[in-house]
């Protein structure tokens, strides 16, 4: 380089360099002694030694409520420090949790979806929780929602404590539905049973809004199409995978029935063909659709937007009188495996989990159906509306099938939801969508499980 370009380099003497390095070393030492993030990063120690390390994936309204619960824990248990980390939802979270556990530096306690917990367990990353230990903290099986509890067991062993169930539900605009005559005398949505009733309700809502009957996200969004399909297909009694995901057992007749129904909704003009996640929310909150189908967590969005709305169970389209089903998942609390864990450390973790359960009231405000029955059966919860309207959906939950590639936000949901979303948008026929979904899933099913 020309010396016009590079300025005269400042001269660094050896003595100056060594002095600087020494000062840096001392500085790093002093910093780690003060346990600042920088110091602990340089020295490789934890920020707050002895504190309970807790990882979660909650953003938005859930994030705010979880922070309130964390400070509730700190107030009631000041002797146990708490250091909590919130990471981005989905694959990045589970990848980091897996790698930290493999590297022998896992958090003491972590949140995991029930469906993803199965993969972590199969990979041998989770500590088994003994009934006797749980009983010491009053966490006995009968105190939990049985659907969530039983789905969380692996060969009868406990690896996760369910915090909630988050079912796919039906949001409805109370103003629109009232004008459409869809509400009963107490202002609640009348039950919508069967295909014809579902289409009729959406048509009547459309007559009021002059635009759409219902909205649902299906563009750039794969989880939502999967959720509505799994709810309908589950009501028909269909299964998708068997033998830990190595076999595809889709019942073509039932799957096509559900897919045909979904494609009809767009063809009849009562649901928009292509709408992304934010668009579906925006149309519903602006009163341009009577219904909106999504997980109950969007409650905060509509409360903030001051939409006149309420919530109900997702309609029973195919289940008849005794086979109502709805897609759901649960947030669970897990204890990742570590080479050594003292009884005191385990007790701290269990104390924390129990404290989260005791604060179910805070958590339930965000829409999730609490798994902790002492709260769910309380009168306080019954008074919490519209959240308690759909509490029974938790008992009818269908979880994503077991496979190393399935679970919330997984490749499975992306593949299945991508094909279903295209059918809903009218881009593919139901039969073509189904065969595409099956052939793509077959690749994953044929792959030898890495766990």
């Amino acid at each position, binding site marked *: *380089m*020309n010396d*016009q*370009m590079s300025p005269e380099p400042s001269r660094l003497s050896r003595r100056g360099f060594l002095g600087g390095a020494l000062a840096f070393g001392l500085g790093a030492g002093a910093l780690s002694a003060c346990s600042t993030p920088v110091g602990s990063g340089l020295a490789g120690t934890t920020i707050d030694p002895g504190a309970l390390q807790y990882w979660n994936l909650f953003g938005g309204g859930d994030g705010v409520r979880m922070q309130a619960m964390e400070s509730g824990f700190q107030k009631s248990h000041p002797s146990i420090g708490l250091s909590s980390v919130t990471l981005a939802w989905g*694959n*990045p979270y*589970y*990848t980091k949790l*897996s*790698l930290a556990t*493999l590297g022998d530096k896992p958090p003491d306690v972590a949140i995991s979806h029930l469906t993803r917990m199965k993969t972590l367990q199969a*990979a*041998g*990353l989770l500590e088994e929780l003994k009934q006797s230990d749980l009983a010491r903290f009053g966490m006995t099986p009968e105190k939990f929602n049985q659907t969530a509890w039983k789905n969380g067991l692996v060969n009868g062993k406990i690896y996760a404590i369910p915090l909630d169930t988050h079912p796919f539900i039906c949001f409805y605009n109370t103003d629109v539905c009232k004008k459409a005559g869809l509400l009963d005398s107490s202002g609640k949505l009348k039950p919508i049973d069967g295909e014809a009733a579902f289409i009729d309700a959406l048509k009547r809502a459309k007559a009021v809004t002059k635009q759409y009957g219902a909205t649902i996200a299906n563009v*750039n969004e*794969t989880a939502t199409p999967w959720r509505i399909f799994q709810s309908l297909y589950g009501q028909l009694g269909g299964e998708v995978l068997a033998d830990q995901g190595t076999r595809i057992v889709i019942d073509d007749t039932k799957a096509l029935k559900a897919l045909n129904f979904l494609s009809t909704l767009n063809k009849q003009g009562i649901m928009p063909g292509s709408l*992304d996640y934010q668009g579906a929310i925006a149309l519903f909150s602006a009163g341009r659709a009577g219904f909106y189908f999504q997980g109950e967590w969007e409650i905060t969005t509509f409360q903030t937007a001051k939409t006149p709305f309420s919530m109900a169970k997702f309609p029973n389209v195919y289940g008849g009188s005794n086979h109502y089903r709805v897609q759901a998942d649960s947030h669970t609390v897990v204890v990742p495996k570590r080479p050594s864990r003292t009884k005191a450390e385990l007790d701290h973790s269990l104390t924390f989990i129990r404290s989260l359960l005791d604060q179910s009231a805070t958590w339930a405000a965000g829409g999730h159906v609490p798994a902790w029955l002492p709260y769910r059966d309380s009168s306080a919860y019954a008074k919490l509306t519209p959240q308690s309207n759909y509490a029974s959906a938790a008992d009818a939950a269908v979880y994503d099938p077991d496979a*190393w*590639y399935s679970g919330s936000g997984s*490749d499975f949901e992306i593949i299945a939801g*991508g094909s279903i979303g295209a059918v809903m948008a009218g881009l593919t026929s139901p039969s073509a969508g189904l065969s595409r979904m099956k052939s793509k899933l077959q*690749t994953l099913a044929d*792959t*030898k499980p*890495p*766990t």
Partner: protein
Amino acid sequence: MTATAYVPRPAETVEGTTRRRRRRLHDDTRPAWGFLAPFLILYALFVIGPAIYGVVMSFFETSLVKSGLGKFAGFDNYVEAFKSSDFWSAMWHTVWFTILTTPPLVILSFVFALLAERAVHGRWFFRLAFFAPYILPSAVMALIWIWLYTPGLGLATASLDKIGITAPAWLGDPSWAMTSIAIATVWWTLGFNFVLYLAGLQDIPRELYESSAIDGASPWQQMRGITIPLLSRTTTLVVVLQVIASLKVFDQMYIMTSGGPNFSTRPALEYIYDIGFTDYRVGYGAAASTLYFILLLIVSALWFMQTRRAEKRA
């Protein structure tokens, strides 16, 4: 750049001189190895070792969550990668990104270097202005551009709205996401090529311009006859470094879109990461990574041959 071409030294014909030289060279190399050792040991330990281990792993059904290499798989992993449409689409995204970014990064940096060179006052300011984005960490640059691209409120969207153009959903639309990331990347890394060109420009002797001006050459003729030919070595260097840097793309895509929407911006490196770490399939991930390594090797070999030819010409 003061890279001087290799000039063959005269003589070295007398037998004795050569032998003496050799011995002296040999004596000289020993302390050299000593000085190189700290680097070489670390390099062998953390680059060559893991690379060999990765190639070995690619022939096994290695799992991240099981100890040991697992069952021998032969070429199964490679066959799977060759058959996988996801692998090829990720490879294509990397190549497409390279195609999208290399021409503007070379041409624009050349143009800006020329302009900055011409500036009489405040030359330091232009140099700083073009180079400054380059020193930003990828996460900072990604955050800035995510804000710019925010639908509805972002500067990029809002300013297009003001002049009456409906902005695309920059990062949300599968057909726009790659272009949006490419634009952000051009802004971010332009400065590096810019500095190389600036240095190249300053190596061109002033006299050439003076004498050509006396002979009546127009600025355009000077550009075509002097500037561009004399910068050809710099251009080769810039193009190759740029192609290799673009092929290594990962950070900005992972942060800005995580490979989405609908995998439309997932580069080869993220595919390898997803397979190896998220899906625990390290063996197959290693096979995909070896194939990717071969691609980079081919590009580097082409460059090597090209520079050799260029040097022979010179």
